[in-house]
Structures are given as C-alpha cells and as structure tokens.
C-alpha cells in the first residue's frame, strides 16, 4: 500500500477509475431515479409504464381533441395504431368510438371546450376561451337618438336596454351565437358544447405501433431496476474507496517518506479554493443554461466530469495541506491577519508606555463620546452597550491594578531578601509581563551575586584557617628551639639580646595568627553565637577585676560609671568578653600613661551603651573608619605592639551579636561605643 502511495501510475489509474465510477454512478443513479421515482415496488410496473407511455398517449389525445373542437369530424380525426378512442359531447352523448373493449394498459380522458367569446352588453368586457379579458370602448348610446350605430362590430347589440344585461356567447369555428340573460346560463350552454376524448392504449399492440419504443424501453428499464440500484451502490462505495486511497496517497512521492508539496500547494489555500469555485461555476453554466436531449449528453457529461475533477483536485490539495500542516498558515487571509496582528502588536509593544495608555484612554473617550451622542437620538438600546463598555474599562483597570499589585508584592519580597520568590509571569501581558520578567531577572542576578560572594567569603575563611594551621606547626618549632637556645649557657650578651628579639617576635607572630583566624571567622559569621541574657553591669565589674592591675601597671586610672540597677541585654558572654578584652588591651597599649580611662554604661531609649574613653599617647591621624579596617593602625603606632586586628574583631563580634561598635576620634580623645539593642 505504501508503495502504491508513491506511484504516479497508480494515482492516474485511480483518477480515471474514479471518473468511470462517477459516470457509472451518475447513470445508474438516474436510471434508479427513473425507475424508482414511480415507486415501482408499491404500484408496480403499471405505474411505471404509465409514465413511460402516458406522455406520448396524452400528446396524441390532445391532438385529436383539438382537431375535433375545431370542427373536424371525430371519425376523420387522426388515428394511431395501438390507441383507440371514444368521444363524448357535453351532454354525455357518444359522438364516436372505435374502442372495442379489448384489454388495455392505459386509459386517459381529456376534456376540450371549443373556442368561444363571451361578453355582456352592459359590462362591455370581453372574455375569450383562452381566458383573455380586454376592455373595449364602451358603446355610446345617445338618449335623444336611441338608434344604434350601424357600424357597430358587436353583433349582439340589437336591443340596447339601459337596465337589462345581455350575455352574448359565440363559438368561433362555427360562428354560432346565442344570447342569455345571465352569465351562468351562458356558461351552461357553453358546457354543452365541450367534448370529452378518452384514449385507450391497448395491451396488445399491433406491429409498428406508435408505442413500440416506449414499451420496449419500459420493459428493459423495469427489468434492470435492481441492477441500477446495485450498480449505483457499488459505484458509490468503490468511488469512496478510490477517493480515500487518493486522499491517503496525496503528497507521497516515489523514494521519499516525506510529504512533497506540488505546485498547486504553492497557491494560498483560500485563493486556491476561490479558483476551484470559479472553475466549478464556469462548468456549471452550460448545465444551468439547459439543454435538450440529446445535446445534454455532450454538454452535461464533460461538464460534470470537469466539475468532479476540480472538486477532486481541491480535496487532494486539502489532504496534502493537512498532512503538511500548512492548511491555515497557507491561507492568504490567515497570513494577512497574522501579519496584521504581528504588526499591530509590534507597534503597540514598541510604543512607550505613556503613549500606550494615552492612546487607550483617547480611544475609550472617543467610544464614550459616540455612546453619548447616540444616547441623544435613541434611548434604551445603547444604554446596555454603554454599560458593557464601562464594565470593560473597569475590567481593564482592575486587571492593571492587580498586575501592579503582583509586581509590587514580588519586588517587595525580593527587596527583603527572599531570593526564592518568583513573580508569576502567567496572565501578565505587555509591559506587566516585561516588568515581571525583568524583576525575576534581577532576582536571579542578585541570587548569583550573593552566592558568589558567600562562596568567595567561605573560600577566604577556609584559606586563612588552613594556612594559619600550617603556619602554626613550624612556629611551634621556632618557639620551642628559641626557648631551648635561651637555656643554653654560656651566651654572649649579644646572643642573649638577639634571642630575646626572636622570642618576642615569635610570640607576636603567634598572636597575629590567632587573631587572623578569629577575625576571618567573626567577619564571615562563621562562629556560633549563643545569645543569652547578660548583665552588662556585672560584666563591667568582671572587666575591672581582670584589667585593674594591668591598667595600674600602665599608669592608667580606671573610672567606672554605671547605674545601680542591672542592665540586661541579649549577648553571647564569651564573644562579648572578647570585645571588652580587645578594647582594653588596646587601651593598655595605646593610652597615655597618667591619664584616666572612662568605662561607662548608660541605658537609653531602646538600647544599652557601653563607652570606652581614653587619651591616646600618639596623635591619631587616621579616621574612625580606617581604624576598624583590618590591619590598619595609627601610623604612629606601627612600631608598637598589637596588630590592628583587635578593633576589626571587636566590630565583627558586635555585629554577630546584633549590636554595633562606633569609634569616635576627637583630637587625642579616643572613644569606642558599644551599642546593644534592647527588647
């Protein structure tokens, strides 16, 4: 079957076969209709024969009837073999008969009235037997001179009476004229002059009879009546099969599995359809013009064939287009509308949003204006549409508001850091959709940036931690062997001095590494924070106890300022101690000996604040911000102890505990404030 699809010969044969089948179907269908049209199965052969023979017999009887009314004697009227007649006059008296009572197949009776003219004198209307009525000039009767004009061509007006009507009937061929007082009597008289002709078609026709052909045809067709039906059904079914085969095979070519469009498919489908309709219309004209038998055979069959072929071509092309999926896209009209829609959309899309809304509003205003003007003229009908129009406007506005709300919520979510929030782009059109898309894009970008940063932070922390661990091992050896060397005796003074430098510097290096690890962990939040209620006034006391001696040794006086009542904040005691430790260590190192160090605790609206104040030994030539940046120290302090990480660690730790650290530099006054939010 697949092979047959590709074969051109098979298709050609199928087309020819289809033509033949169509022809066969048409003919057998006509035959069937001919035979079955008389409802052969109920009234039988007689009825069919009647239709076949009746026409001719009727023609013959008419001819006989007319010739008798025109004056031919019945016995002289034409006679046909196989047809016997009986003629009766209007009163039912037999005028002539050659019917011998033999067996007949058909009896046809027709009445014939003679040609006549009927008119009344009063009415002056003429009626002729062919039904034609004319108005004749009314005869003029002069009251003074009652003598009628001799030139009157109306023979019935001998006795003109003003009041009495006279009906005149004249039979045309014989010229016999009668007058009657009323129309009814005149018509009765006319009826007596009608004749009735009955024709009998004999069952047994003589040789060379007039009905020979008709009867023969009738017998033949009648005997074929079942064959016609079967033939029609067979032709129809086979035709359908062949048609389906052609539809399936359409578009297939030898040697390829694909559907190949032909030249016909290059024509847009709607244009093609119009062409086919035009072709069919052209081929229809000869049929509509009407032809007589037998020219019809020569005109009708080619026309029908051409119409059928055109239709077949259309069907096959339709099938190919459906298979290719280009049925709609191939339509010129569809293409045009798509182009139009795309164009309008593109123009509308690319319009600035202000123009879009402006144009929309202008259009709405215009439509509204039309409604208002219309409302002046007509009353209720437009009000309904006006309402609809405003409902539409309300709908559009509501949609815009809802869309904006969705965008607003999404933007809010993303702004508040919910990076998993995705704005639903479904059901959003035009700029709303673009905006949603852009917002989602921004979110993706942010997401990536945040992830990237987290990754690099983590990487940095890990790097610092790992490197520090690796540095610690050799440092252990250095510390140990320096210590061992210090125990070796004897030593020169210089050796002793150098060893002390080594010892001091290795201790510094050790502290530096520990601070480095801590700083990186604190700044990336890589520390566990356990926030618990913590009384700052106790912490201040503990700090004073721990650092009192050290401060005294450095020549500093500690002044504690705190309220009597406990000041409780949420903090992690260990981390908080580390902050205090770092800050006080700095003070011990950098404060001017002989000055006071103020450590005060205040409770203000919504926050607790611990302030460290001291006078710097060296001038502070760096800004507060630079001081907290890692590894930054006052330039003047570069040579002294400490590594500058202390402040950075303290800042990070405060942030981890949701607090804050502020540095103020005012001349030599160095002030650090720790702020804890309360509640």
């Amino acid at each position: 079957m697949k092979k047959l699809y590709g074969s051109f010969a098979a298709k050609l044969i199928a087309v020819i076969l289809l033509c033949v089948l169509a022809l066969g179907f048409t003919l057998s269908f006509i035959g069937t209709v001919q035979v079955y049209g008389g409802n052969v199965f109920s009234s039988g052969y007689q009825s069919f024969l009647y239709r076949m023979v009746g026409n001719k017999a009727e023609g013959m009887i008419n001819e006989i009837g007319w010739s008798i009314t025109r004056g031919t004697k019945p016995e002289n009227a034409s006679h046909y073999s196989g047809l016997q007649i009986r003629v009766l006059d209007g009163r039912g008296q037999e005028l002539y008969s050659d019917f011998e009572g033999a067996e007949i197949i058909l009896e046809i009776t027709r009445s014939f009235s003679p040609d006549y003219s009927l008119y009344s004198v009063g009415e002056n209307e003429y009626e002729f037997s062919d039904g034609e009525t004319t108005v004749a000039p009314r005869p003029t009767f002069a009251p003074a001179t009652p003598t009628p004009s001799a030139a009157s061509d109306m023979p019935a007006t001998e006795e003109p009476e003003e009041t009495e009507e006279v009906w005149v009937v004249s039979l045309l061929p014989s010229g016999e004229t009668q007058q009657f007082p009323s129309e009814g009597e005149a018509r009765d008289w006319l009826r007596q002059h009608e004749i009735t002709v009955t024709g009998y078609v004999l069952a047994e026709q003589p040789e060379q009879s007039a009905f020979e052909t008709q009867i023969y045809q009738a017998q033949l067709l009648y005997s074929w009546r079942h064959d016609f039906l079967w033939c029609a059904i067979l032709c129809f079914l086979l035709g359908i099969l062949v048609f389906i085969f052609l539809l399936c095979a359409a578009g297939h070519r030898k040697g390829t599995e694909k559907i190949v469009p032909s030249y016909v498919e290059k024509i847009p489908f709607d244009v093609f359809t119009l062409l086919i309709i035009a072709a069919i219309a052209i081929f229809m004209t000869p049929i509509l013009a009407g032809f007589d038998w037998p020219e019809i055979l020569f005109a009708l069959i080619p026309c029908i064939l051409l119409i059928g072929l055109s239709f077949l071509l259309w069907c096959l092309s339709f099938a190919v287009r459906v298979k290719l999926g280009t049925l709609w896209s191939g339509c010129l009209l569809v293409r045009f509308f798509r182009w139009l829609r795309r164009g309008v959309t593109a123009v509308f899309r690319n319009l600035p949003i202000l123009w879009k809304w402006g144009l929309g509003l202008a259009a709405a205003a215009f439509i509204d204006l039309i409604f208002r003007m219309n409302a002046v003229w007509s009353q209720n009908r437009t009000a309904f549409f006006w309402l609809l129009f405003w409902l539409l406007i309300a709908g559009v506005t509501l949609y815009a508001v809802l869309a904006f709300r969705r965008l607003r919520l999404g933007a809010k979510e993303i702004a508040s850091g919910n990076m998993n929030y995705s704005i639903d782009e479904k059901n959003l059109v035009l700029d709303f959709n673009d905006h949603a898309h852009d917002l989602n894009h921004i979110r993706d970008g942010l997401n990536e940036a945040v992830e990237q940063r987290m990754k690099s932070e983590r990487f940095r922390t890990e790097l610092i931690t790992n490197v520090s661990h690796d540095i610690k091992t050799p440092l252990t050896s250095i510390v140990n062997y320096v210590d061992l060397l210090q125990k070796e005796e004897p030593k020169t003074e210089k050796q002793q001095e150098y060893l002390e430098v080594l010892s001091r510097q290795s201790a510094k290096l050790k502290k530096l590494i520990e601070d480095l690890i801590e700083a990186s962990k604190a700044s990336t939040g890589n520390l566990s924070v356990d926030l618990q209620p913590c009384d700052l006034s106790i912490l201040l006391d503990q700090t004073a106890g721990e650092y009192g001696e050290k401060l005294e040794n450095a020549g500093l006086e500690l002044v504690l300022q705190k309220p009597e009542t406990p000041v409780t904040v949420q903090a992690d005691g260990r981390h908080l101690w580390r902050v205090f430790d770092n800050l006080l260590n700095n003070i011990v190192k950098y404060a001017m000996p002989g000055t006071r160090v103020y450590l005060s605790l205040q409770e203000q609206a919504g926050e607790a604040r611990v302030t460290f104040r001291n006078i710097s030994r060296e001038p502070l030539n760096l800004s507060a911000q630079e001081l907290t940046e890692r590894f930054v120290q006052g330039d003047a302090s570069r040579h002294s102890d400490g590594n500058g990480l202390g402040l950075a660690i303290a800042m990070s730790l405060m942030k981890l505990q949701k607090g804050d650290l502020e540095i103020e530099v005012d001349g030599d006054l160095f002030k650090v404030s720790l702020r804890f939010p309360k509640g």
Partner: protein
Amino acid sequence: MSYNILICDDEKDIVSALKIYLEAEGYRTFAAANGREALAILDREDIHLVLLDIMMPVMDGVSALAKLREFSNVPVILLTAKSEDTDKVLGLNVGADDYVTKPFNPVELQARVRSQLRRYLHLGGGAVRESVISIGAVTLDDGSKTVSVDGEPVSLTPREYEILKLLMQNPGRVFHPRDLYRKVWNEEPYGAESTVAVHIRHLREKLEIDPANPRYIKAVWGQGYKISEK
C-alpha cells in the same frame, strides 16, 4: 622512678624539642611519627603518658586515640594546631585528658604533663573523706583548710579560700558577684563587686596552669562565676 612518655607527631623537629624538654624533667621518651606507630609502641612498652598530635599521615590522632582507649586508660594530651572549640570538644569526648594548642609554651606543656602523671599514678583511688571536695585536679580539704592541685599544696588567702569553697560546694552553679561578696565578706557590696573579680583572678592564677584559659574557675561573662571541670 622514671616515667615513659610517648611523643607522637609527624613533625620531627617538634618531637626532638619535646624530647629535650621532657628528658630534662627526667622522663624516658619514645617517638612515633603517626598513629599506627604510636599504637605499636603502646603495645610493646609500658607507657605512662601519651602526647598525641591530631593531624598526622597514615592514622590521625583522633582515630589512634579511639583505638587506644579500647585497651588502655593511659593519660593522653592532644597536641593540635586547630584551636576551634569543636575540635577540642571532639578530642575530649573521644577520650583525651587534656589538650595543648600549637604553638605551645614549653613550660605550660611540662606543667600539664606533670599534672596528668600525678593524677594518673598517685591520686588514682584516694579515699574520699566527708570534708574533702574534689573537682578535677583541685582538692579542697575543709578539715585541714588546705587546697591542693594534683596533690601539690597551694596557699590561698582566707577570702580566696572561702570563695573557692563556696564555688566547689556548688559545682556548675553560677554565682552573681554580689552574692559572692555577701556570702564571703558578710556585708553589702556597695559598688565593691569588682573586688570579687580581682580575687577570682588571683585564685585562677594560683590554681590554673593557663590562667587565660581556665579549666576550673570560669567567668560566665555578664552573669557571674562558677567552677566546673572542662
């Protein structure tokens, strides 16, 4: 009597330095470069204390410690470059008795070694008397009013002794400095709470090997003080 100490570290220089320090104290030392060697030596020799590095090739310190604890309760001091709390907790949970973070102070290490050996060999099963309270290495005898750490007597001032006694009678409980002051000084602490902090610091300096990283007397910052082991 000389004690046998096993030093296990993959860094040869550190092992040599440790040998010098420990042999100067009169101990016999054995060296191992990884956990497997350490286990082999433990199997062979009568070892009284192990210094165990955590990061080593072949078999690391924590695995070796876990194996070791299956057959021995010899004191183990971990040597570690990692200073994170989680690492310390892990080491102690697996069965270490103490830990020292690199780079360590040799004197501190010597002190810890001494402390562990004393506890392991001398204080193993001392009879517990009513008046004696022990927390870790710290023992307080209320009868004789003496305090000792790892059996070494420590001299305390009466206030320090009272504070320590109060803390040791309630191990784990956090004392507010004001409460401590009231109970020890028997008077109201009008702004004298920092005195308590000073005494605590002194106490720590006398009892702890590393006062900056106390094992027993701990400050709960912003709340008070307590005594607890580890």
